[in-house]
């Protein structure tokens, strides 16, 4: 699987910076050729993931480190090699219960559960793991092009 790093951000757990990340990511997704609706989906997923890191992993503390990396990758889908955007977010906050990625019932409208629901609905793959004292969230959005060879 080929990978190329497109963008890396070193962020702080400050809610005020979320708008800056959304604007940059929206531009990146647009540049990669994602349709407008898919750009919004990617932006929503990353925004919600960062929100969860700030609220849960760092329990609202600002100035804590978050690393965000964005790579162009290729994934197998329907027997074809498809271009995709891989997003990895890493934080050094408290361990997040991986079961939370299942989300809560929608009737429970607290934003934490709703945010996880948004992430899962917006992305094609969502994986969480804890390693070396860090939480790592990996998300993948496949770029559906009419001719996959053109999207690479």
């Amino acid at each position, binding site marked *: 699987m080929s990978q190329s790093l497109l963008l890396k951000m070193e962020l702080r757990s400050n*809610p*005020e910076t*979320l*708008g800056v990340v*959304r604007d940059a990511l929206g531009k990146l997704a647009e540049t990669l050729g994602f349709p*407008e*609706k898919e750009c*919004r*989906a990617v*932006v*929503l997923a990353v*925004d*919600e993931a960062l*929100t969860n890191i*700030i*609220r849960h992993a760092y329990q609202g503390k600002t100035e804590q480190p978050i690393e965000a990396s964005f790579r162009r990758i290729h994934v197998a889908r329907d027997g074809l090699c498809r271009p995709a955007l891989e997003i990895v977010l890493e934080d050094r906050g408290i361990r997040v219960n991986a079961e939370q990625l299942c989300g809560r019932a*929608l009737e429970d*409208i*607290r*934003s*934490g559960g*709703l*945010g996880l*629901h*948004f992430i899962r*609905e*917006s992305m094609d793959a969502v994986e969480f793991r804890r390693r070396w004292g860090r939480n790592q969230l990996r998300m993948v959005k496949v770029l559906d092009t009419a001719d996959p060879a053109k999207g690479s």
Partner: protein
Amino acid sequence: MLQISARQLDKTTILDVSGDIDLASSPEFRKAALRELRELRTPRVVLNLTAVRYIDSSGVASLVEALKASRDLGSRLILFGLNSGVREVLQLSKLIRVFEITDTEEQAVAR
């Protein structure tokens, strides 16, 4: 940056909201909506979301809280002017049907 201003129209208050409703700004949005409903006891609160660029789950949670407050108090909460992005987020939450939503301010006020 979120901005909220209020207009009175008979027994209706229209809150003109502009900017992004996210983790940083949703507390202010929630406070403004709940103030109209719980403290000022406005019979009908209309949220003008025409200039809202983005809403996240904390914004949706604030909307739901305002809706619950309006139901508890026997008042009404009506939204209008949702752009594609805001509408998509509400659809994704599967909560869009619980809200009264119109396309225009005239429709919202006439309801």
